[in-house]
């Protein structure tokens, strides 16, 4: 695995390149080239180590002396592969996106320095074996992401949004410190490989799980803790929002898997807890997404939904662990792992797509978009691929992972009897409902953004070859996992049997008949192609006629009179008005010749506006009431520090 560290060195050399090269453009080219070389040279050994099933767990060696700081076990390798795989196309896009900033005359040195460090820190996070090293890398990853996020710091919403992210990170790291200290006290070691706590420890076991769920759940964005996602994602530069949504929130999932490795078997109620929270995240995530107008905010809510789906898989796995049922564990955890990879791929595709649109139109508001398909036909198809994948429709990858999770439900119902069949039925309906709403949501954005007429005049629409390359790689990956899932499923099966579910011989994952699924998918594809050819022939034969939209007899139609995103989603949003906080403001026309009128629709986040924010406000009010600390002179702060140190010393002194 030495190769991995050389690849990291190449990536870090990119930072050096920024310092040495004065010109922004040359530096950008050098950085991205170095990063690509580094990432590809890192991905190759990772994949080969992942695919060779019998490879022993490797420790990092410095000059032949084994060192416990890093450990390349199957789980770490799997997440490392996700990070590297997704980072490659993101880096390609980053090059063209930074070019865009430079054309506007902005210096991009800040992003050029921060991005390689972010990549390296993220890769180190998932393979570190020492708790403190893990925390350091984790903190470095979070901080560099923050620094990238505040790139356009002169904007007001960037300041507030990034602040939420920063606060979230501080809380997470604080909780993680407590978590690892407790683990250390139990295991008398700082190494992940030595941690193991059995459920016999009672309250400690529960406390550890609660800490891990809160900390990693907050990072991943499960429902009560999702408040930072819709704030932080839209404001970051596209590269960072895509990386944030594709990779960084997945480190929370990674943490949950690691926690399960330390603390198993899980009690049954924990499985239910995770399953319920995830179900809520999935359903409300997608429902809130439906009401959004800002494309990146919408995608951020979809991240909450997908994290929910991953969580459902983990919950099923926990239940399986409680009953010592191998097939249930394999299907639950397997679905979660595959969905983690899938979500990283298609969410990056969608975010980058939205970034391309933002660059060209200068707006993130869906209501102002329209007719983009005519400007970039191929681009529209690529975006559609991402949308189909995220909605979990066959024949793309989203379906495969959700299929595994559905299979998990059915297997749980069959294996665990008791009251499980009924409860699993409810879960199945819930997940299907999520899929339905996701379809509605992506129909909305695809039809409003790509079809119809241009609502706002598009002066110049340009998509560079790098954008196409990056989006194309993601789309290819979506299709690859969709049409030919066997190798991916096999890898996941290996990961599971090597790191979580020892003695996994039955391998419920492999017994699903993947060949038929591939066959059906190919049939679907062939059907599409046939219909398309047929349509072409009919067009050729009878000609094609384009006529204007029917305006109920109204003559002077303009693009503003098209079906809008709000009207599209209105019926669905009205159902959930109370939970969603969806409200419309309109004065119905009273006279025969109505005066100028306006319509507004707005969706609050219930959890956000009713639970999190009032709580924040209370804390804020409480702190500002402590006038004692309200000095702005630095000397008073130092004096306070001195006083506190003296008190601590006194206590320590008396203690001894």
């Amino acid at each position, binding site marked *: 695995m030495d190769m991995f560290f050389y690849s990291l060195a190449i990536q870090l050399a990119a930072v050096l390149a920024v310092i040495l090269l004065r010109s922004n453009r040359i530096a950008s080219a050098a950085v991205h080239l170095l990063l690509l070389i580094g990432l590809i040279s890192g991905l190759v050994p990772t994949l080969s180590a992942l695919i060779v099933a019998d490879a022993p767990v490797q420790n990092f060696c410095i000059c032949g002396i084994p060192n416990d700081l890093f450990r390349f076990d199957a789980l770490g390798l799997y997440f490392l592969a996700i990070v590297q795989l997704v980072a490659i196309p993101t880096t390609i896009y980053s090059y063209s996106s930074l070019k865009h900033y430079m054309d506007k005359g902005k210096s991009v040195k800040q992003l050029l320095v921060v991005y390689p460090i972010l990549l390296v820190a993220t890769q180190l996070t998932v393979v570190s074996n020492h708790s403190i090293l893990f925390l350091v890398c984790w903190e470095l990853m979070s901080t560099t992401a923050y620094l990238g996020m505040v790139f356009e710091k002169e904007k007001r919403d960037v300041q507030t949004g990034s602040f939420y992210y920063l606060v979230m990170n501080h809380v997470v790291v604080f909780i993680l410190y407590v978590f690892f200290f407790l683990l250390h006290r139990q295991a008398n070691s700082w190494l992940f490989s030595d941690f193991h706590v059995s459920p016999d420890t009672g309250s400690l076991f529960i406390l550890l799980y609660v800490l891990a769920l809160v900390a990693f759940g907050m990072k991943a964005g499960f429902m009560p803790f999702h408040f930072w996602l819709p704030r932080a994602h839209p404001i970051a530069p596209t590269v960072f929002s895509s990386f944030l949504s594709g990779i960084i929130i997945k480190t929370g999932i990674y943490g949950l898997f690691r926690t399960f490795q330390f603390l198993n078997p899980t009690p049954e109620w924990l499985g239910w807890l995770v399953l319920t929270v995830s179900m809520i995240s999935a359903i409300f995530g997608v429902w809130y997404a439906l009401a959004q107008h800002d494309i990146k905010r919408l995608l951020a809510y979809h991240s909450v939904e997908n994290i929910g789906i991953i969580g459902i898989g983990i919950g099923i796995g926990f239940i399986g662990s409680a009953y010592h049922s191998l097939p249930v564990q394999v299907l639950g955890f397997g679905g979660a792992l595959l969905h983690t990879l899938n979500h990283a791929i298609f969410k990056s595709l969608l975010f980058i797509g939205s970034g391309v649109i933002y660059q060209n139109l200068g707006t993130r508001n869906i209501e102002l978009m329209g007719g983009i398909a005519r400007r970039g036909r191929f681009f529209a198809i690529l975006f559609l691929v991402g949308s189909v994948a995220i909605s979990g429709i066959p024949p793309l990858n989203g379906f495969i992972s959700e299929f595994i999770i559905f299979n998990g439900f059915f297997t749980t119902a069959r294996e665990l009897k008791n009251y499980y069949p009924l409860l699993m039925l409810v879960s199945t309906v819930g997940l299907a409902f999520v899929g339905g709403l996701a379809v509605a949501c992506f129909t909305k954005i695809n039809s409003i953004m790509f079809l119809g007429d241009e609502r706002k005049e598009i002066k110049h629409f340009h998509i560079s070859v790098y954008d196409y390359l990056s989006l194309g790689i993601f789309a290819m990956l979506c299709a690859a996992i969709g049409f030919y899932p066997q190798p991916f499923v096999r890898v996941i099966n290996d990961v599971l049997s090597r790191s979580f579910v020892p003695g996994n011989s039955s391998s419920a994952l492999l017994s699903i008949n993947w060949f038929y699924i591939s066959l059906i998918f190919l049939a679907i594809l062939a059907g599409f192609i046939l219909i398309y050819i047929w349509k072409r022939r009919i067009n050729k034969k009878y000609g094609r006629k384009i006529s204007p939209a029917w305006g109920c007899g109204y003559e002077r139609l303009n693009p503003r009179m098209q079906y809008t995103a709000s009207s599209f989603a209105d019926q669905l949003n009205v159902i959930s008005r109370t939970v969603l906080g969806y409200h419309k403001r309109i004065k119905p026309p009273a006279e025969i010749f109505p005066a100028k009128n306006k319509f507004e629709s707005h969706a609050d986040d219930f959890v956000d506006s009713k639970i999190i924010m009032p709580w924040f406000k209370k804390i804020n009010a409480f702190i500002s009431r402590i006038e004692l600390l309200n000095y*702005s*002179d*630095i*000397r008073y702060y*130092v*004096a306070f*520090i*001195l006083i506190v140190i003296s008190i601590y*010393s006194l206590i320590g*002194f008396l203690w*001894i």
Partner: protein
Amino acid sequence: MQNVLSIIFCLSLFYLAVTSRVKAYVTVLQIQGAILTVLLLYPLIEHFSVPALILPATLFIVKVYLIPKYIKKILVDLDIKRIIEPTIQQFSFLLLIIFTMTVVFVATNILSKSTEIETIPFASGFSAVAVGMFVIIFRKKLIIHVAGFLVLENGIFLFGSTIASKLPMMIELGSLLDIFVVVFLMGIALNKISSTLSGFEATALRRLKD
């Protein structure tokens, strides 16, 4: 030898309290840096090894040469007044330091009976931390705050070197780099704010609050 040097270190702290010239602070910092270097070199007489020389050498370069030179450069460049502006009388400041030092020494002496620490260096280090903080609290000039911070760092260094000789060299080197960066940043900040805020006093920073 260690005790003698530590006491000289303590005496330099007293000098900080009574002097009213910025330059004297720089000289004291240089002296303290030299003392620390000698303290680190002293054990090498018995067990000499080349890698062990790295730390004292870096310490000497950073604390005795680079930082004082940089502070002097800032003094000249920004034309800062040479007189410090205390907020309390020199004499009461001296009394405060003597009082603190007494408490620290007595406490350390009691502590040394139950734990394994060397009384004089440990207490000197601890007093330096306290004095550094006092300097920041009772002086208005920003450049003196930097000096106070450096004294504090020296104190940490001193008792760090006494309580555990096991402390990894990397950490010490890291902390050295750390303080150098801090001083550097402070210099840049002072340079930047010199155009808008005059006097380089901490009280003026209050206006920066948003």
